[in-house]
Structure formats: structure tokens, C-alpha cells
């Protein structure tokens, strides 16, 4: 699998391996590559996206050419190893104020609201990437029937704790922020707390299950 390199400004490279749909094995290889690359003395950040990797570096001491070689080497050496994972269960109250798109999603999926909840709660999700907002996770494993297009007009304000889906992924709002994803429920789980030893609730590779509560 060949990595395509694109400049993201003078001090970052976007490395893309996407080829069609989401590739789970490639994603694990990206995590391994990211961990190897971020040990390099001039690399500032290695941020896995969904089947891609953004590497930021210190442009005063190195350049895109040298870093491209470092990443390519790490990618070649990276094997699809088993990443240590935990299972994290998140309780969801489906529907309600933070789930106001539930009926709409059900209609688009051709399911009843009850079936939609059952399908969402039956999923076994994986944290593919962390980003966009502090502690936000892109969860893969969303049932194909729930892969509905994003909202035409993003909401300016989606509250923390909203359980959302969009772009073929599931997620949970870690803070109040704009989002174009659909709101299907609410959780009391706190995805990001700067005062915790580990601010993010979830790590890359974690398995996430949603448990419906009344």
C-alpha cells in the first residue's frame, strides 16, 4: 500500500493511504507509524486521521524532504500489530433534546425509531482517530444503514454529551461546538477533562459500546 505525501504548509506533511472505503488494517498500521515518527527529534506532532496521518515538524532544523523519508521508512517498517485496546461502555439516553435528529435518521435509513436505536446500540465501534475538538473521537463500525449524509446546514451549537453520527462515523460531543452531524441521544460520559491525568476518555484503538438507558 503506497503512501501519498502532500505538503500541509512548509512544516507539515499529510500522508494519505485512503483507497476507497475505510481500511481497518491500514488504520492500525498508521497508529504504529505515528508512534514511531513522533520519536524523531524534529517531529512536533503525528496526528492520525481516518486512513491518513498528519506530521508536523520543526522547519528551522529539518525540511519536508527529510521528514518524508522518515515517515516512509516508518510506514514500511510498521506491521499490522495488535494495538492494546480497552472496551469502554457509554450509556446513552436515545432521543430527547440532544437526540432531536433520531426520527429523521430513522426515516433516511428506512427504519423505525426503535430499530434505529437497536442498530446503533448493537454496533461494536473502534476509535480510529482523535481530533477536530478536544477529546472528540471518530468511531468506525457504524452500521451501513446509519451512514446517512451530514446535515445540509451544520448546527452552530451542539451541546456536550450529544451522541452523534455523520460521514459514516459515530461520535460523542466532548464540548459545546458547531457540528453538521446528526444528534441521536445524550450521554453523561465526559470525553475530555483537562484536569484528568489523561484528559481524553478514549484512546486510539479502544472498542466502544453504547448501552441504551431510559
Amino acid at each position, binding site marked *: 500500500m503506497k503512501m501519498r505525501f502532500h505538503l500541509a504548509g512548509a512544516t507539515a506533511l499529510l500522508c494519505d493511504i485512503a483507497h476507497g472505503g475505510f481500511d481497518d488494517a491500514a488504520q492500525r498500521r498508521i497508529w504504529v507509524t505515528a508512534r514511531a515518527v513522533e520519536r524523531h527529534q524534529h517531529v512536533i506532532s503525528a496526528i492520525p486521521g481516518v486512513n491518513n496521518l498528519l506530521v508536523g515538524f520543526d522547519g528551522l532544523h529539518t525540511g519536508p524532504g527529510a521528514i518524508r523519508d522518515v515517515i516512509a521508512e516508518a510506514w514500511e517498517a510498521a506491521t499490522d500489530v495488535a494495538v492494546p485496546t480497552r472496551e469502554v461502555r457509554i450509556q446513552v439516553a436515545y432521543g430527547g433534546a440532544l437526540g432531536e435528529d433520531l426520527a429523521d435518521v430513522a426515516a433516511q435509513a428506512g427504519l423505525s425509531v426503535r430499530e434505529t436505536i437497536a442498530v446503533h446500540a448493537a454496533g461494536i465501534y473502534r476509535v480510529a482517530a482523535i481530533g477536530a475538538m478536544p477529546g472528540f473521537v471518530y468511531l468506525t463500525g457504524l452500521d451501513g444503514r446509519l451512514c446517512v449524509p451530514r446535515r445540509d446546514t451544520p448546527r452552530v451549537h451542539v451541546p456536550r454529551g450529544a451522541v452523534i453520527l455523520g460521514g459514516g462515523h459515530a461520535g460523542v460531543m466532548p464540548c459545546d461546538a458547531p457540528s453538521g452531524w446528526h444528534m441521536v441521544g445524550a450521554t453523561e460520559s465526559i470525553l*475530555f477533562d483537562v484536569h484528568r491525568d489523561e484528559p481524553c476518555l478514549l484512546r486510539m484503538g479502544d472498542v466502544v459500546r453504547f448501552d441504551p438507558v431510559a
Partner: protein
Amino acid sequence: MIEILSTSALNTIQDFGRPHALHMGVSRGGAMDRLAIAHANILLGNARDAAALEIAFFPFRARFVERTAFSLTGASCAAQLDGRPIPSNWAMTAEAGQVLVVPAPTCGAWAYFGIRGGLDVPVVLGARGTDLKGGFGGVDGRAPEKGRRLKAGCSSVPPPGNGGFGLVRGAVLPEDDHTVLRVLPAAEHEAFTSASRTAFGELAWQVTPRANRTGFRMDGRDALRLSRPLTLMSHGIVPGTVQVPPDGMPIIQMADANTCGGYPKIATVIESDLRLLAQTAIGGSVRFVPVDEAGAIAVLREEARALDCLEADVERLRGGLLD
């Protein structure tokens, strides 16, 4: 110590942000004009990335609770201390009880109010700057409100005299509508129609009112179009990324850029020029010109060298003033 007399929720404590917390989804953050905040700190003998107050909403007023060395850089504001004018890009010492007024800028948009020793707020995830979205850093994750007193950190550097000193030439500010931003092509550059690529480089792009620390929405005569529809998986983005949403009008990611996005990207504004866009007022126009990889790295290194020289010069000057 200073006491804030009038301010807004947009005037936040900033520094160089959190480049090492991106993996948690935390924005890099930091000053919208990194060169101006570096100047504010260098003038006072602070570390370049010490915390200072970023002023985006005017007038800003503060009272010095005790004798305090301070600096003002960034947007040109015709500031006054007890009614007496302070030049732009200036450092000086105020006496207890004196009042600083920073009125709306005549040029530029973001001003920096530095304090000798830096503003003393807790370090959170490696920085003192305010992350408004995450609600942390600065003063409890938000702008310090009216009546709030801000403390300075320690410094062994001698303060400037009451008259003070400054830079002959501060960081360049955008004038008229001739601001040129150097850009590198981004991942989807070739996916845009050739007409759109040309339009991107030739048209004047206007800063719309939808401009904040996260992103600047631009407006131009022609919408930018892809040759064919494109669905991208979420990927990391950086401040300076020029995204093109379906309406064809570019959004440029600024200091509080989201760490991931999904829109096609036509270009990236180089780090050194992003401050020029930040300082362009709403309604002002910019143009984009291409630069190559080597050219962009050279600009970055030249800017770092210039800051090193300035730091050494200011140190010599300070020694000379004391002799």
C-alpha cells in the same frame, strides 16, 4: 499587577499555544499574530512565548495597580497612558494608578499588551494561552473580565524607563488592499478545475464578517469548483489551511484551527504570512501567490534569524540605557 477596566469576551490571554497537544484534538491556539506577541515579549526581555493579552475588541482599558513595565505591539492603536500618547511597538514603565487606554486600531486588528515577566496564569497542557473552545487555559478558560486583576510573573531583566523605547519598524501591517499571502498547494489543489485554480491566484479575496480565531471565511467573485465531486475521510489540518466547502468560498483556518477536517483543501498560507491575514480587517482584500517548498522554508528561517537579531539588539540597548 494590572486591573482590567473595560474589555470584551474576545480579549484573551495568549502565547504560542499547544503544538504538543494536537493529538488530543486540542487546537494549536496561541496568538493570531505570533510575530507581534514575540515583539511584545522581546521588548520586555521575556521569553518570546510568554503570555500576553491579545486585544481584539476596543477600546480596552486597564489600570496599573503597581509600578509595571509593559509593551504594546501589533495593530496600530494610538494608545494612551493617562492621556499621553504611546508610540506603536513600544515598551515603557507605568506608575501605580496610571490608566492605559487602547482605542480601535487605525491599521491592523489584533494588538498585544505584554507585561514584564509575562502574565502569570497556570500552565495547562503545556501552555498558558486561552482555549475558548476547550474552556481551559488563560483565566479559567475564558477572557479575563472587567475588574479582574492580572499578575505578572517574575523577571530579573531591568525594566525600561518611564519614557521607554521601541521598535523603529514593528511587524508589517496590511495596508490598502495590496496584502499578498504566499501559499503552497495543498492535497486537493489539482482536483480543482483549472479555471478555479486560476481564479484562486488572480482574484482579490475579501475577509467577510465571519472571521474569528478559528477561521476566516473569504468572499471572491468566482466560487471555486472541483473537477468532480470528492468525498474525503477526516484528516489533520493546520492553521493556514485553505478549505473549500461546497459553496466554493474558501475558509482559511486560523490559530484555533480544528485539528481535523474533511473539506477539500486548495492551498496552505505559509505560517509567516498568516499573521498578515489575521491583521486584515473585515472587508479588506488579499491575494494569494504561490511559493515553493524551499522558498517557504527559507522565509521561516529568515524570520527566526531576524527575531534572534532583534533579541540581541534589544538586550544590548537595554545594557546601554543602564550604563
